[in-house]
């Protein structure tokens, strides 16, 4: 009885995982953001609505930075002189601010989705 329930739970969990993994990356438009002197370049850009976007973030500073956005639900550490990839969207139209959590005073930006 006990084992039957556990088996069933495992089965549904596996099923959920399989569905989730079946939709692995189709090619998404790439947007490049560079970090230099704790600033984002570009700090503001537009992306189309309802589209998955691949953000390629290049940190040119020697210090690490953390890309963070509450609106996008994203958070990722990018160590100094390296690059990182973050997927966002599909998003509904609106403004989505992001910031560098390690240097929030200067590292600010926003994504305009239209």
């Amino acid at each position, binding site marked *: *009885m*006990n084992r039957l329930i556990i088996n069933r739970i495992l089965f549904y*969990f596996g099923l*959920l995982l399989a569905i*989730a*993994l079946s*939709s*692995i*990356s189709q090619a*998404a438009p790439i947007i490049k953001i560079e970090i230099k002197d704790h600033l984002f370049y570009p700090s503001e850009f537009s992306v189309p609505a309802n589209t*998955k976007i*691949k953000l390629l973030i290049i940190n040119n500073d020697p*210090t*690490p930075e*953390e890309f963070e956005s*509450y*609106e996008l*639900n*994203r*958070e*990722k*550490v*990018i*160590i*100094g002189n*390296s*690059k*990182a*990839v*973050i*997927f*966002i*969207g*599909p998003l*509904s139209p609106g403004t989505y601010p992001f910031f560098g*959590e*390690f240097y*929030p*005073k200067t590292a600010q930006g926003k994504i305009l989705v239209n």
Partner: protein
Amino acid sequence: MLPNAVILILQETLEAALLIGVLLAVSTRVHDSKRWLPIALVSGGCVAAILANQMGIISEWFDYAGQELLNALFQTIICLAIALAVWLTATIDPLNPQPGKVAAFSHCAIIIIFCAVVREGQEIILYLGGFMYTENFQKVLTGGALGFSIGASIGILLFYSLVDHSGRERRTACLVLLALFAGNMLSQSTLLLMQIDWVTQSPPIWNTSTFVAETSIFGQLLYPLVGYEATPSPIQAAAYILGVTLVTGANFMPRYYPEKKKQQVQPVRGNDA
């Protein structure tokens, strides 16, 4: 520089501090030695330092998905270890604790705190490391120490407010907190999988940001405590519910499926009692 360091380190410390507070409160029922705490803190700190040092290489794994996969793994382990720890506490007889189960509980606690410390520790180390050779290092360190102390104090406060209550109330409060923690961990791990596009993102099921903004103090406190997210996606919500169900299920299962007599007289294994 200083206020930012306080907030950042506080945010990172809070999750582990709250977890430690609850686990310590739970373990008063189990009557184990509290040796798991220093073991987990020290080993977690060391591994966090190694991972922070190697973050450049780790980040590039699986086509720049390494960081997310590693953190998602830690979060999933935390969730499962919480469920196991809750199941153990539900089956341990507080008047006559079985040494094997008490040792197993200690091991679960080590795993939980170890993973939490590794996850948050590496971020703290990377952050502080970035200021190492700048004139601001002293300020950032002071701010960090302040943030850490506030986080630790909140954990201690939680512990004492939990042990202050009678057995039944305390057990319920601990169970609720641990279930929400587990849900939060699983939900966060799906978010990381969305970030690397291993799971497709779908539109949020609701938006409560006008109600409680994630940037507000209340939102910032709710995030580590119950995993508050203003715009969760359906998969995130499902993962949250799964985590909560796992832990509550682990608590109530022994009640409905009591162990057989044979299993109760297992040979004594651990020596952690």
